[in-house]
């Protein structure tokens, strides 16, 4: 049984349909990435997993249980963390408050201090800046905070939306390393959305490619990377 399973998903904004009959599955303990040009519906899929957007048809299953009708907080409580696009830290709260908010769900609250120690171990810079307002951090630090905040709920599945956008190469490398460690050391399943195809597929086990709201390619990362169709999607069809 896959950890996360999307089945024949249709998502609409009003009368405008943006996702068409999309099915995909993410296996436990893997890293998967969602690729596609701008506006192909990647973020919409992420948002519908955590209930920020409600699908019109289809089903979403997490650990075999349907979650597409649950309120967001119950989805989060079942073990999904969602790191939104553009970081979205709470700018007028301290770094520590941001992190503590991450452990708002009961599953996180129970092991709050352990988690905090773990996050500080992963991102030592956050430990140094605990008392600082999150809005005053640099872009890279904010992204670390956003990920760290997600980890505070001890998720089984981590959804990350465009984590590398606008970051310096050094920081990107650091984050890549963190994702790999999380996957390796904790067996955490990660689904990420990314624009940079090579980098994303390079760190993933499996890749999904969207075009105009439809899933057009899926498979093991290396195969996707080498497929002809990938070029067609990103460079236009002949």
């Amino acid at each position, binding site marked *: 049984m896959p950890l996360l399973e999307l089945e024949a998903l249709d998502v609409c904004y009003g009368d405008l349909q943006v996702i068409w009959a999309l099915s995909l599955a993410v296996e436990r303990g893997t890293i998967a990435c969602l690729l596609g040009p701008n506006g192909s519906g990647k973020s919409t899929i992420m948002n519908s997993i*955590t*209930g*920020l957007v409600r699908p019109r048809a289809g089903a979403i299953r997490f650990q075999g249980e349907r979650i597409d009708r649950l*309120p*967001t*907080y119950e989805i*989060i*409580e079942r073990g999904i*963390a*969602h790191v*939104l696009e553009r970081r*979205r*830290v*709470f*700018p*007028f*709260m301290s770094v520590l*408050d941001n992190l*503590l*908010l*991450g452990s*708002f*769900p009961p599953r*996180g*609250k129970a092991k709050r201090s352990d988690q905090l120690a773990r996050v500080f171990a992963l991102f030592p810079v956050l430990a140094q800046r605990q008392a600082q307002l999150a809005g005053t951090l640099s872009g890279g630090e904010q992204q670390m905070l956003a990920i760290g*905040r997600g980890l505070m*709920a001890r998720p089984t599945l981590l959804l990350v939306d465009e984590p590398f956008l606008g970051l310096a190469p050094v920081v990107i490398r650091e984050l890549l390393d963190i994702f790999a460690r999380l996957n390796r050391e904790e067996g955490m399943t990660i689904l990420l959305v990314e624009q940079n195809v090579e980098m994303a597929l390079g760190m993933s086990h499996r890749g999904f490619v969207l075009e105009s709201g439809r899933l057009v390619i899926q498979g093991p990362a290396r195969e996707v990377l080498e497929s002809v169709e990938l070029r067609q999607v990103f460079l236009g069809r002949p």
Partner: protein
Amino acid sequence: MSLALLAQATANGLSLAGLYALVSVGLTLVFGVMRILNFAHGEFVMLGAYASFWLFTLWGLDPLASLAVVLVLMTGLGALIQTTLVKRVLAAPHLNQILLTFGIAVTFQNLALLLWTGDLRAIKVWYSASSLTLGPVSLSLGRTFGIGLAMILTGLLYLLLFRTEYGRALRAVAQDPEAALVMGIPIQRVYILAMAIGAAYAGAAGVVASVSMFTYPLIGFLFGLKAFCVVILGGLGSVFGATVASLILGLVESFVGTFFAQGSSWAEAISFVILLLVLLLRPKGLFGVE
């Protein structure tokens, strides 16, 4: 001007500020969390005042004691209004929200008028029209009770916001509701909490009004408009800003009214001018951020 007069004017201003703060802190909280401008907020004051009046008249409950009951009642009312009505316009444009809450206000006003007539009501207890004399300054007990209550309740709100899990959640929702959602914060419950606190605080202001002044069905408008000025001046959503703005307006109105001929009739216009000037320089109010 004599020093005694200055002291008295300051005392008067402070007690007015206490009343303003009680009314506006809840309003600004509701706006901060839900981005809803609640035009029915003044009616919570009115209902709180009537609740206190009836508890006193029917059961002889002293306002100091009935305050607790009123807080509970108003919390319930706030929660009820949130879950049945306001919840459904959260995603609607501001205009629709204004109209919904305005409709609620009209309904409450006229319900009160039909149920309790248009008569003026006030509570008479030993502290309702008496004062403490400190040298040349007279401090009204009823209104001092208002200042005290404003300080206690604002303090409690600060404790809630900065020392509790749900307070942190409130602040998070105010800053970024979507990000708060994916933190696993049950946002609808946070909304209910905010509205309940807003209603309860307004109800507390109503208790003070029922003791130190009076109530009647349309009294909400009196407080509502001023509370809007206070929260806009302070910066929407900023509890601290609302407190500071209450102080400013309370003191300014008192000084203008005391030291200038025809000051009492101009005082309010001067409040509005201050508001416009501040907005001219800081469009988001004194402590507003967005």
